[in-house]
């Protein structure tokens, strides 16, 4: 049993070049960085030199979880995987991918807070982590197999409870657009090729130990129940999507889909999701049905049940049963995923014969999940499919690809919305067959460069939602105005931050949101109604900072930022307040290391700052403001040319966004001119040696 609560206490280090396996004391070495991405950034800063490329043996992969992973804290199922990001263009920079599933918990039960993978094996291997017994195993038999075959064969060796994170053919073939996947449908994008470059096919984990709760168990039970009572549906949407007998408010955009008459139609017998009154904690799992949210009412009849991560009552993955696909496409009738993973196949097509929410669209989803989640192809938050449509319909494929190859695709099927087209396309991306598929597998930035297309065209295109560095926007101005824009400037891939959008899209009326915002960020003006944006103010910058720090905190503690923070709730008697301290309450009781909300936010700020320092070091530039924190031109346009701040547009104003960045840098105590953190800021957050290192390189403002 670990000395401390929460943490397992050990970090596992595996050098694939030498075969050396060792462990480190988590708290001795990484206490100031909590876990997850914190350990990831620390390892990359200390051990990976600037200039290393993603697929170099000198790059490292850090599978990190935090003190809450494996506990009963709701929404703790996520593993953060930090490495130099292969789709980050023009140069690999640090970033992290995040997968749910059972892997995080199993790693803790095995006794580890993180696994650091370094070097490169001389032949295909997989890593077996079975409590304290860790072995590098021959994977030559598995090489060339899909994720599902690989997982089953490893489960045969390690037992059915083992969690297996595996790559498919896409990762083996070093396609940057590739994932690592565990628990059937839980993937982390971008990491597959880095695993492949190390000849590492999979990591199988089996843990029979436990995670100790340091605090009093009755207090822990009370806290868990408090947290559960504050949960909404997926993305912390706290009102239902249609009127309910118990609900004061409803919002059609909510992911709280449950309602009398809406049934898990493919359960046997079918199950009515019903009213889901928020105080009834035994019905939380029925609230969310992301298949129905994204695919429409037809999805209900195909719903077997919700699925998801360890300890999460919000089942954001939906298990679908579509018997027709078995005969039509020769694939299993069951499939499951969420959000862009669910929509993977559908999103390639512009239209379907029976409309965007018809049966064919659902079948395209089934085919897409079947293929992509076995081959291990990543879609870069939907950018792959948006690029594909643009490249085809603008005639770029035809121009860039040899005629014979171009004609080898059944474009008539594609245009007709025939899902069988995916059988032609996705295996070729994974296997890098031909120019078209190989280019798509590179990711947007490298594809554009390869084909001599100026990035500017993408930056200006309102439909492509491309942001920068080869990656798209992720909850930007369309969800939170300037706050969303600021957040989308900060990372080296899509921002993956939901702290802000989980608030602005929670479904509560704007008056209620403003009341809560005043308590959280000092003024009701911190938030606007979506598409009724007002000019920048300092409170929006506060909210942006809070959003980023909480995202980073969640990625270190192993809480899900797709669900948290929990500052609004479905509870009328709380006037829809959540609890801004839930993270620190959970952390303190689980670990026994008592920290206030502010203290924990300060640690999160240190970790976020280290990410910033790494970005600066590896770019070799201190002028972040103009070189890194860039904003695509489409943000400042409107398809109907509506003026910024007018009702119905998400268009931002250039001068106002300049002010927004000024205010954000100020809030962070960074240098306004360069957007680089100052020496004093590094020192204040305990990163003095980082500042010294940057000073040596002339990278302090």
């Amino acid at each position, binding site marked *: *049993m670990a000395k401390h609560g929460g943490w397992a206490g050990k970090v596992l280090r595996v050098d694939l070049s030498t075969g050396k396996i060792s462990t480190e004391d988590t708290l001795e070495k990484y206490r100031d960085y909590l876990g997850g991405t914190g350990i990831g950034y620390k390892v990359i800063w200390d051990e990976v030199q600037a200039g290393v490329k993603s697929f170099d043996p000198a790059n490292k992969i850090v599978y990190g979880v935090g003190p809450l992973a*494996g*506990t*009963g804290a709701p929404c703790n199922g996520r593993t953060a995987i930090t490495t130099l990001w292969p789709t980050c263009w023009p140069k690999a920079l640090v970033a992290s991918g995040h997968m749910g599933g*059972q892997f995080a*918990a199993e790693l*803790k*039960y095995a006794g580890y807070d993180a696994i650091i993978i370094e070097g490169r094996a001389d032949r295909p291997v997989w890593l077996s982590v079975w409590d304290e017994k860790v072995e590098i195993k021959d994977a030559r038999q598995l090489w060339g197999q899909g994720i*599902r075959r690989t997982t*089953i064969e490893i*489960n*045969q060796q390690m*037992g*059915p*409870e083992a969690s297996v994170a595996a790559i498919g053919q896409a990762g083996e073939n070093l396609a940057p657009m590739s994932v690592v996947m565990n*628990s*059937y449908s839980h993937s982390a994008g971008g990491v597959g090729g880095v695993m492949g470059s190390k000849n590492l096919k999979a990591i199988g984990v089996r843990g*029979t*130990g*436990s*995670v*100790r*709760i340091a605090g009093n*168990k*009755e207090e*822990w*039970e009370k806290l*868990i129940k408090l947290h*559960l009572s504050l949960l909404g549906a997926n993305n912390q949407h706290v009102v239902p999507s249609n009127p309910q007998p118990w609900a004061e408010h409803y919002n059609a955009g909510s992911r709280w889909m449950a309602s009398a008459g809406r049934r898990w139609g493919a*359960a*046997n*017998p079918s*199950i009515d999701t019903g009213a889901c009154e928020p105080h009834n*904690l*035994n*019905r*939380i*799992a*029925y609230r969310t049905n992301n298949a129905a949210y994204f695919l429409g009412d037809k999805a209900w009849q195909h719903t*077997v*049940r*919700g*699925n*998801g*991560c*360890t*300890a*999460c*009552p919000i*089942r954001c993955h939906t*298990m679908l*049963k579509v018997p027709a696909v078995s005969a039509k496409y020769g694939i*299993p009738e*069951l499939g*499951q995923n969420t959000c862009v993973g669910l929509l993977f196949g559908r999103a390639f097509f512009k239209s379907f014969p029976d409309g965007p929410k018809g049966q064919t669209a659902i079948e395209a989803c089934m085919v897409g999940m079947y293929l992509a989640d076995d081959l291990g192809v990543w879609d870069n938050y939907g950018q792959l499919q948006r690029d594909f449509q643009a490249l085809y319909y603008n005639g770029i494929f035809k121009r860039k690809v040899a005629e014979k190859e171009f004609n080898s695709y059944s474009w008539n099927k594609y245009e007709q919305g025939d899902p069988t087209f995916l059988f032609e396309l996705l295996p070729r991306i994974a296997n890098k067959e031909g120019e078209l598929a190989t280019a798509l597998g590179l990711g947007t930035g490298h594809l554009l460069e390869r084909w001599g297309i100026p990035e500017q065209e993408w930056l200006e295109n309102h439909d492509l939602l491309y942001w920068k560095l080869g990656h798209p926007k992720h909850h930007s101005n369309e969800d939170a105005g300037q706050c969303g824009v600021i957040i989308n400037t900060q990372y080296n891939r899509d921002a993956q931050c939901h702290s802000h959008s989980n608030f602005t899209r929670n479904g509560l009326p704007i008056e209620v949101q403003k009341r809560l915002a005043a308590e959280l960020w000092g003024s009701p003006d911190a938030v606007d109604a979506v598409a009724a944006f007002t000019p920048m103010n300092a409170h929006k910058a506060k909210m942006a900072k809070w959003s980023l720090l909480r995202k980073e905190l969640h990625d270190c503690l192993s809480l899900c930022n797709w669900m948290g923070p929990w500052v609004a709730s479905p509870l009328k008697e709380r006037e829809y307040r959540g609890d801004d301290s839930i993270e620190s309450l959970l952390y303190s009781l689980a670990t026994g290391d008592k920290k206030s909300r502010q203290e924990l936010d300060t640690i999160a700020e240190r970790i976020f700052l280290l990410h910033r320092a790494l970005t600066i070091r590896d770019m070799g530039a201190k002028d972040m403001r103009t070189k890194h924190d860039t904003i695509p031109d489409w943000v400042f346009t409107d398809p109907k040319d509506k003026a910024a701040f007018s009702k119905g547009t998400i268009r931002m104003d250039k001068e106002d966004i300049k002010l927004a960045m000024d205010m954000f840098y100020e809030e962070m105590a960074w240098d306004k001119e360069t957007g680089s953190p100052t020496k004093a800021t590094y020192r204040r957050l305990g990163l003095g040696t980082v500042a010294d290192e940057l000073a040596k390189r002339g990278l302090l403002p």
Partner: protein
Amino acid sequence: MTGGLIIAFSASGAKAAKEGPVIIMDQAEGLVIADPTKCVGCRRCELACTEFNDGKASPTIARIKISRNLNFGVNGIPTGQRGGGAWGNGLVIQDICNQCPHPVPCANACPNDAIVVRPPTNARVVDSKRCSGCKMCRRACPWEMMSFDSGTNKATKCFLCDGSPKCVEACPSGALTYAAWRDLTGKIPPRVAPTAIVAPEKAQTCNECHKK
């Protein structure tokens, strides 16, 4: 029943001579009933069981067992995508303790008579003071519902949380119900063939009671 030979640790607390073997005869009052069509595989029941009772998250010692059926169902990996669990038909079978009627296999197999009846539910529970950690009980349960806590070196099993099971309270999909006891031992297929043997003195007790 012939007096003296049998010690029944019953709800009424009746007990006789110290040296005789424990043979449980009283029926349990309650039972956790599980509906696999509603299980969403979140394992909150396993975590509530061990965190709220033992102060640690530990599916291995959970007295309701989900993890082992979660991926591939009760028939395991060979069924691949044709079996149960998330990889198969989606059904997650929740393994629960039947609170067996007499003769109680785990109790009879215990060389220390450490599995006893405890009021108010009459659940069959491990008396950890008596448990020596020999794991014979694990070999006796056809449903593999005995757990072993390597932290305490003791066996553990479902004790119905004295009448308000934490797992039932924790289930976010209402798949678990605490109900009046009924005999499920003939209804739920065993997972393994038990290999424990009943000690000769207990076997003798059986013969004493069940005289021809």
